[in-house]
């Protein structure tokens, strides 16, 4: 085969001119830093919002801290001074943000302890709920969505779509009650409430089994809505991707339909689902309030519920802050994951 003589000696094809040597950051690092900065900004906005809510609450922070304890007028005045309530609103905001940034949410009167300690004690239960629900709903929902798209227009698709619609339209707390009625009240298969069987002194594997039995119903109740979401988005995303040109190229190469579907199309169709996970985590921290209250689980959601009814603003806003922080962290991790899944992302 004869190679044509190149017309120029430089051979700079495709990539353009050699990159100018510079101190500029690599695109990937720039992307990570930008995302980090955005996360910090978002947390600062959450702090400002939290401050606004405190200002809207009847009584001020010190009233709340004083709570049921008897404080002298002097003590109250000195507390007011300590928290800067005699200063301008802007200074108060800065001080408040500084406190939040060090996880100092103030005192929780109903628990007679710093709000942060209360939250830390309740965090693990909620974390377990959220992690189990996200992973389960994502896997199950995606499978449903992909199946529906594989058989688009056929009976399987219709069946799955109807089921998704039912799950989508039923609020999680109604599912929770339904599950309790069936599996706890009628069938007695699973415990009705709580995180573990009290007073049994289980250890080791038995303990894990006991906790798992307690968690089956709450996790299921939290999952259903998002199974439907992932199913619907997954189906739509697959159908969208299957219309793209590269799918035709893949078929034109003579690849098996399975490879075209599960390797070429699926990888691209997964991208919007991954983005969804961030929103889901946020929504689960909200849903946990209902589910933990119904199932009597000692988590952050239940704590928020108690705080609302006992007017413990510090504790309530502490829960809001910690949940938001968790969501920001999850979103950051997802952004990093995205960088691996979609090689184009850090060019945007």
């Amino acid at each position: 085969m004869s190679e044509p003589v190149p017309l120029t000696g430089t051979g700079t094809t495709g990539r353009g001119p050699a990159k100018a040597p510079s101190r500029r950051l690599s695109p990937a690092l720039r992307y990570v830093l930008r995302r980090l900065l955005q996360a910090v900004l978002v947390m600062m906005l959450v702090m400002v919002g939290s401050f606004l809510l405190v200002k809207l609450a009847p009584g001020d922070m010190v009233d709340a801290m004083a709570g049921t304890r008897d404080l002298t007028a002097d003590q109250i005045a000195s507390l007011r001074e300590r928290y800067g309530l005699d200063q301008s609103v802007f200074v108060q905001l800065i001080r408040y943000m500084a406190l939040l940034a060090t996880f100092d949410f103030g005192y929780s009167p109903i628990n007679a302890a710093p709000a942060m300690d209360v939250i830390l004690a309740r965090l693990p239960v909620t974390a377990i709920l959220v992690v189990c629900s996200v992973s389960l709903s994502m896997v199950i929902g995606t499978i449903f969505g992909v199946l529906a798209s594989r058989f688009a227009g056929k009976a399987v698709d219709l069946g799955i779509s109807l089921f998704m619609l039912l799950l989508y339209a039923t609020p999680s707390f109604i599912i929770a009650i339904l599950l309790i009625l069936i599996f706890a009240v009628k069938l007695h298969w699973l415990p009705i409430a709580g995180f573990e069987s009290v007073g049994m002194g289980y250890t080791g594997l038995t303990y894990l089994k006991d906790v798992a039995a307690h968690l089956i119903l709450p996790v299921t109740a939290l999952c259903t809505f998002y199974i439907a979401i992932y199913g619907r988005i997954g189906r739509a995303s697959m159908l969208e991707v299957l219309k793209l040109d590269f799918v035709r190229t893949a078929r034109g190469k003579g690849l098996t339909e399975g490879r075209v579907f599960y390797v070429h199309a699926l990888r691209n169709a997964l991208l919007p689902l991954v983005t969804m996970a961030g929103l889901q985590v946020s929504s689960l921290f909200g849903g946990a309030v209902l589910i933990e209250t119904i199932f009597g689980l000692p988590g952050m959601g239940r704590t928020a519920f108690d705080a609302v009814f006992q007017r413990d603003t510090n504790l309530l806003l502490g829960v809001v802050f910690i949940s938001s922080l968790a969501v920001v962290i999850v979103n950051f991790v997802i952004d990093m994951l995205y960088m691996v899944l979609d090689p184009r992302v850090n060019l945007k």
Partner: protein
Amino acid sequence: MRGALSLLGRLARHPSGLIGMVLILAIVAMSALAGILYPDGPWTMAGPPRLWPGADPRFPLGTDTFGRDLIPALFYGARVSLLVGVSAAGAALVIGTVVGAIAGYWGGWVDDALMRLTDAFQTVPNFLLSIAIVGIIGASLPVITFAIAIVAWPMIARLVRADVLRLRTYDFVQSCKIIGMSDLRIVFQQILPNCLAPIIVTASVLVANSIIVEASLAFLGLGDPNVMSWGTVLNIGRQELRNGWYLTAVPAVALVLTVMSLNLIGDALNDVLNPRLKERK
């Protein structure tokens, strides 16, 4: 107007659109007739307490723990659900559309600032924030509506922004700039009417979500104590789960049917307004 009527006509020819519209019309009729059929309101203790459905022909759906008839409760509850659902969704729609349109069209730092604000609202767990707002300010219908709308608008804002970003590169928008049209007029008269389809579809989902959140708040005991909502009955039912699960089932069915009909309408709107997606089926 003609466009709206023809849209309704097209919806009626779509199977899920038809089912959804019939159901939603029934709910609307319930809320409209509540005051006429039950002038005494939902709170009257009309009969013996804890009557199971069918036990007494005067109370086909039974009575609650205080002997209140469940049928007027359902009718008045429909009123609250629709009122809160539609007004919260409407408010979210307006905020979201304005924020999304401004961010998408002007771009630059305006876009950055508005999108970080949107991020912040999407980061705070929505239901938690709603509870915090209602819990701190106090439970009344306006506050509840506000608490729902304030967490719902970011979804619309993102949607509208994405669409405006796409449309603003279109040559017809460029051409409007060339003829010297003002930016506001370009956004609201030229661009936004072209994003209507996804906004309308999302609006139906938004109403459904708002209804769920209102019911959830009332279920937790954070509803407006002066109005009878489906959530109020659910809250009462929760305490009677072992012996009177019908108290949960009756409002739950009403809630699920309402939400489902709105979602059916949303799906149908999506098909009718985006013929592109329909080709595949």
